[in-house]
């Protein structure tokens, strides 16, 4: 193949290449650091990611590069920013967290960086093969990170469940990709629409490919019948990793979900909307109903993240510009509000040695008034109460569904939001209305600065995205415009 048709454009892979180089140089640096100094790798990784952030946010418009393998458009730039921000917050919290659980290792930090590189490959993949490589890089990193608390059997259990089900889902996804390739003759996402649309749009095997691909992605976003790994993996993983899985992995999977279903499979929309409609409705209702009896707050947040996946799916079902942009906006808001909630869970674990259970939050408003207020803010934002970012995100998604005439789906979305308010408000109730039972453990000194920084920044962004969504929404709409035809 002559080099001109390959369109070698190193700028289009620059952000992910830089993250990969950063990860590899951290690996080399790890050889020269003594046991107690591994935190330096964490801080250097954060600095490196913050340097990559402006480069990643700069979209290079143009044709897909490297023989159509990758495309660096505004869509991938938007998601790359979410990944990098989530990873920066998670790494910043990890330095203190790893010290607390007494397993400081260099590997943790650069495996997180490898996961970020995988997510970036996913968001800018323009070929099903590149997409699969990105998914595997991200997923393999997360399997290792989930099982990272080696002395805790829950962590091993979560890691193993995540690994087995993740491998199964990868197999299903590959099976779908192979059907798609077999009947369209290409793995290139933009070519599939051209070759498989039109007269071939009713081909049974092509539809099988669409269905299996959807199932593979549904595993990764933890949609209802494919969600079983999520609560165990979330509970077992180190809490910063849980936050990163629930934000980064979900955002990356939605990025590929959106790109594949909007760019490659729009010709089959008359078929797949029913499938995704049912998935979305079931996920929303199941997630919010099962979250109610949870006593462990991380499991509660896991089921809440399942419910959120259902709401975000509405945006894909709607298949219009507002829906796709709503998905992107929702994931941006979700990154901040969920990271904030997890940061507070970690903060309580650090200050008081508990915070794992909902009942630990009793009487928090009198002991940590500011933190209790911010926790309430994050939880109400997750529930979708104005004027927080969560409300605007739900508003955009539901209005897109109404615009596309999915009235019932929008109604189910509203009902699930009302149900979910119950379990979010329960934590707020414990914090403000209940007194702590027994004597409270003495505060274990001032916790690291990282908690304050992360909690305040995420709280500010959650409010900003609720009060002034226009510029972010505009970026999202501009980013999806070239994808939707």
């Amino acid at each position: 193949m002559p080099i001109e048709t390959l369109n070698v454009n190193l700028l289009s892979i620059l952000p992910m290449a830089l993250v990969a180089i950063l990860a590899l140089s951290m690996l080399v640096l790890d050889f020269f650091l003594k046991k107690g100094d591994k935190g330096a790798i964490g801080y250097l990784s954060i600095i490196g990611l913050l340097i990559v952030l402006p480069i990643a946010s700069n979209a290079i418009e143009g044709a897909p590069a490297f023989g159509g393998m990758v495309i660096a458009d505004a869509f991938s730039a938007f998601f790359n920013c979410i990944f990098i921000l989530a990873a920066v917050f998670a790494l910043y919290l990890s330095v203190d967290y790893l010290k607390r659980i007494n397993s400081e290792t260099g590997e943790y930090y650069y495996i997180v960086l490898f996961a970020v590189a995988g997510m970036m490959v996913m968001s800018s993949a323009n070929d099903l093969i590149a997409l699969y490589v990105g998914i595997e890089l991200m997923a393999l990193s997360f399997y290792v990170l989930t099982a990272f608390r080696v002395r805790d059997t829950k962590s091993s259990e979560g890691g193993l469940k995540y690994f087995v089900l993740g491998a199964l889902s990868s197999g299903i996804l590959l099976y779908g990709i192979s059907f798609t390739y077999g009947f369209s003759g290409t793995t290139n996402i933009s070519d599939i629409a051209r070759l498989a649309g039109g007269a071939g749009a009713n081909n049974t095997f092509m539809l099988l490919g669409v269905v299996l691909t959807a199932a593979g992605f549904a595993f990764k976003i933890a949609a209802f019948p494919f969600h079983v790994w999520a609560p165990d993996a979330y509970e077992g993983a180190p809490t910063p990793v849980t936050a990163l899985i629930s934000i980064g992995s979900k955002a990356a999977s939605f990025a590929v979900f959106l790109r594949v279903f909007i760019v490659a499979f729009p010709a089959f929309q008359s078929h797949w909307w029913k499938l995704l409609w049912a998935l979305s409705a079931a996920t929303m209702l199941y997630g919010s109903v099962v979250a109610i009896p949870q006593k462990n707050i991380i499991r509660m947040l896991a089921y809440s993240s399942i419910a959120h996946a259902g709401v975000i799916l509405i945006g894909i079902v709607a298949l219009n510009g507002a829906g796709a942009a709503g998905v992107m906006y929702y994931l941006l808001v979700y990154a901040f509000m969920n990271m904030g909630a997890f940061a507070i869970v970690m903060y309580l674990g650090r200050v008081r040695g508990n915070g794992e259970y909902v009942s630990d939050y009793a009487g928090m408003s009198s002991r940590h008034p500011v933190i209790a207020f911010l926790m309430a803010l994050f939880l109400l934002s997750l529930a979708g109460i104005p004027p927080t970012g969560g409300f605007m995100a739900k508003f955009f998604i539901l209005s897109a569904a109404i615009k596309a005439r999915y009235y019932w789906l929008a109604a189910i979305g509203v009902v699930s939001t009302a149900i979910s308010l119950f379990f979010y408000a329960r934590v707020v109730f414990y914090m403000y209305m209940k007194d702590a039972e027994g004597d409270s453990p003495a505060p274990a000194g001032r916790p690291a600065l990282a908690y304050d920084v992360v909690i305040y920044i995420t709280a500010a962004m959650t409010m900003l995205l609720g009060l002034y969504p226009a510029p972010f929404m505009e970026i999202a709409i501009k980013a999806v415009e070239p994808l939707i035809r």
Partner: protein
Amino acid sequence: MLIDYLPVLIITGVASFMAAAALFVSFLLRPNNPYREKNTPWECGMDPVGDANTGHTRIPFFIIAILFIVFDVETLFLFPWAALLPDKGISVFIFIEMFIFIAVLALGLVYAWVKGALEWV
């Protein structure tokens, strides 16, 4: 369209039949003389210690296996690369590309080495 795959079905049937037939014929012909040593699992020529299903498998086996696969796959990529290399248009580009690839793999080997994964104690 499906009829195009008929040869695959036929070769599957032939292969299954051959395998079953080979097992059946050898079952008819072979002498049957089991004794204790013959029934022990073969473990690289060493006497087996305990049951295999208790999970006492040495971790270095896995590490060596993983390293083997990594470099096996590297070789797999090197052959088509070598075949493409005379193509003047892309030779410089893919030459550099392959060295980056090998450097990343070599870094993985160095990592395993430094962390002591290659020591067989």
